[in-house]
């Protein structure tokens, strides 16, 4: 019997804490409501992808700080509601539900990966809250509903740019492809191959790996070596690219490597040193860009965090900037913010001049970089 009483006691305590928890959450925001506008940032702060979430966290905080220092939005300060989704689809939907339930949240910057974005999308769409992902490139993402926006070129746009870079600049006729087995890697690879074949190149190998699980690329590289390709094209993130480049060097293979904008990260240079020398890649954001928008962002970020921002930070910074832009015009109204965000044209961001097409996908121009003398350098 005692057992059952303790059971009931636990249940009741839980029920109380639980409802209490969410209520107090709302209370604190209610008291602060008049002076503040809340924008949520949802990204992985723990788990495999925490490093990208960290970039989101820093860059969005910087943008908000800048806006608040200049008087906020109509005198109201912006507050960030930071949510960890572990890059786990289940947690992402929980986060989404939590955010849509919180009436003070007017817009969401996030999530990081397409998996999380897609899982959370129905919740946002149903509630009518903007989900503005800085990085989701899954073709289906913005098809989930009218409240989904993205701030990264889809692979339909990036693929042909990279194919042109590989075939015409790097003179790749026989190309080997290594791609990460996730939605991004597969769409990237498919779009690249389509564009490259149109340009007359031949794909001699198509190998995949599983992200954050595969560390040993020697069998894949040994296999590709049999085909003697002109160029190896990687649809991968920087950490795996570093490993692939190093293992290639250890095996004594010397093929030029081409990558995607995902490789633009100073960590890649630290990680793999001279093994990544000569890699070619496109990018939206480049710190060496003399554009004052970029140089201002650079110095502000370095002052705040003592480190150079990567492209994830840059795109998160722009995403927050555009969100604030929309709120400025619409006021703290979720539906109006969606309307205004969709109307944004030629936003002058650190990742380029940004406009949405009718599918709420962005179209941005890209620059080509090469790693030379241990540094990313602009070519042409």
């Amino acid at each position: 019997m005692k057992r059952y009483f303790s059971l009931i006691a636990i249940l009741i305590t839980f029920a109380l804490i639980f409802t209490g928890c969410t209520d107090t959450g709302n209370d604190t925001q209610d008291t602060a409501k008049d002076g503040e506008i809340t924008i949520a940032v949802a990204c992985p702060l723990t788990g495999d992808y925490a490093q990208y979430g960290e970039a989101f966290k820093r860059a969005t905080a910087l943008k908000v700080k800048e806006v608040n220092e200049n008087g906020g939005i109509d005198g109201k300060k912006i507050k960030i509601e930071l949510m960890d989704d572990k890059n786990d689809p289940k947690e992402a939907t929980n986060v989404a539900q939590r955010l849509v339930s919180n009436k003070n949240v007017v817009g969401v910057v996030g999530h990081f990966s397409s998996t999380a974005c897609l899982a959370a999308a129905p919740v946002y769409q149903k509630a009518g809250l903007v989900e503005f992902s800085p990085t989701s490139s899954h073709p289906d993402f913005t098809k989930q509903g009218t409240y989904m926006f993205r701030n990264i070129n889809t692979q339909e746009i990036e693929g042909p740019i990279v194919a042109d870079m590989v075939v015409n600049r790097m003179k790749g006729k026989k190309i080997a492809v290594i791609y990460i087995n996730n939605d991004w890697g597969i769409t990237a690879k498919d779009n690249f191959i389509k564009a490259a074949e149109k340009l007359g190149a031949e794909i001699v190998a198509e190998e995949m790996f599983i992200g954050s699980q595969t560390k040993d690329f020697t069998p894949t590289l040994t296999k590709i070596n049999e085909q003697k390709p002109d160029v190896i094209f990687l649809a991968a993130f920087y950490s795996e690219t570093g490993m692939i480049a190093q293992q290639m060097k250890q095996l004594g293979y010397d093929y030029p490597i081409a990558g995607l904008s995902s490789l633009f990260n100073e960590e890649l240079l630290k990680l793999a040193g001279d093994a990544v020398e000569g890699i070619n890649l496109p990018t939206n954001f480049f710190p060496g860009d003399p554009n004052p928008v970029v140089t201002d962002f650079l110095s502000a970020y370095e002052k705040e965090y003592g480190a150079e921002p990567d492209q994830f930070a840059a795109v998160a910074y722009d995403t927050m900037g555009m969100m604030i832009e929309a709120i400025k015009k619409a006021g703290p109204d979720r539906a109006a913010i969606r309307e205004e965000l969709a109307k944004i044209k030629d936003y002058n961001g650190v990742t380029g001049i940004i406009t949405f097409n009718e599918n709420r996908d962005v179209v941005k121009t890209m620059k080509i970089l090469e790693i030379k003398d241990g540094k990313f350098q602009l070519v042409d």
Partner: protein
Amino acid sequence: MFFQQLINGLTLGSTYALTAVGYTMVFGILELVNFSHGAVYMFGAFVVLMLMTALKLNFMLAFVIGVIITGLLGITIDKICLFPLRKKKAPKVASLISTIGVSIFIQNLVMLVWGSETKNFPLVLNLGSINIGSLKISYLQIIIMMIAVVLMAALTIIIRKTKIGKAMRATAQNMEAAKLMGVNVNFVISFTFFLGASLAAVAGVLVGMYYQSVDPMMGFMAGLKAFAAAVLGGIGVLPGAILGGLIIGVSEILAAGYIHAGFRDAIAFGILIAVLIIRPTGLLGKKVQKKV
């Protein structure tokens, strides 16, 4: 290409083998699957790296200190998270969940303290490689295999010939009886954890050197594979861990090279399951006669 793949596989297998030895030893003594082992392996690699980069120690010194620190971590895990459970005679699964808790804790703590990004592990021993025709074997690969074999031999000697080894075997056979015979069982267990954890650190550092990178999640898959290797060879049997590690490593690489890279882990686990169905106690495991 086949021989190159074989070499690749043997190297990978050696790293699994080193890690598997820790699982097997703890299991042999306590019949406990220590899920924190993967995290300890990662911790070892990180500590050595941090000693080298933050304190600017030279590699050998950092290596020795790091391995000892990791060994002490092994003892601490046992003392804080497992010993109280043994004292209470709690079910084995409770200990298992406790080690899972430890694993989550260490992994995320490392991430908090040192960041979650993949870090470069400096190539301290740049020794080049030997070429035999188109076959290329780096000295690092040879060293990794050698160390696996040497450590394995040293362990066997410790367990067969020394006093502490005798005590370990006695404890593994029957903890209560060993206690009655005057064996300091607590010391034996601590020693086992120390040994297991420091071996994991050695493996972590070697793997870090081999791939020239470490990251906080590196222990997860490596831990699972090493566990699989230990079981495949026959858990609790030292040579079994080495054999299991090599088989898992080679089959994984060959699967990636000749079948499909996406299925490499599935094939490694598939082989494991197939072997266990045929030999339920692993390749070198002894069949236990039921006591009635």
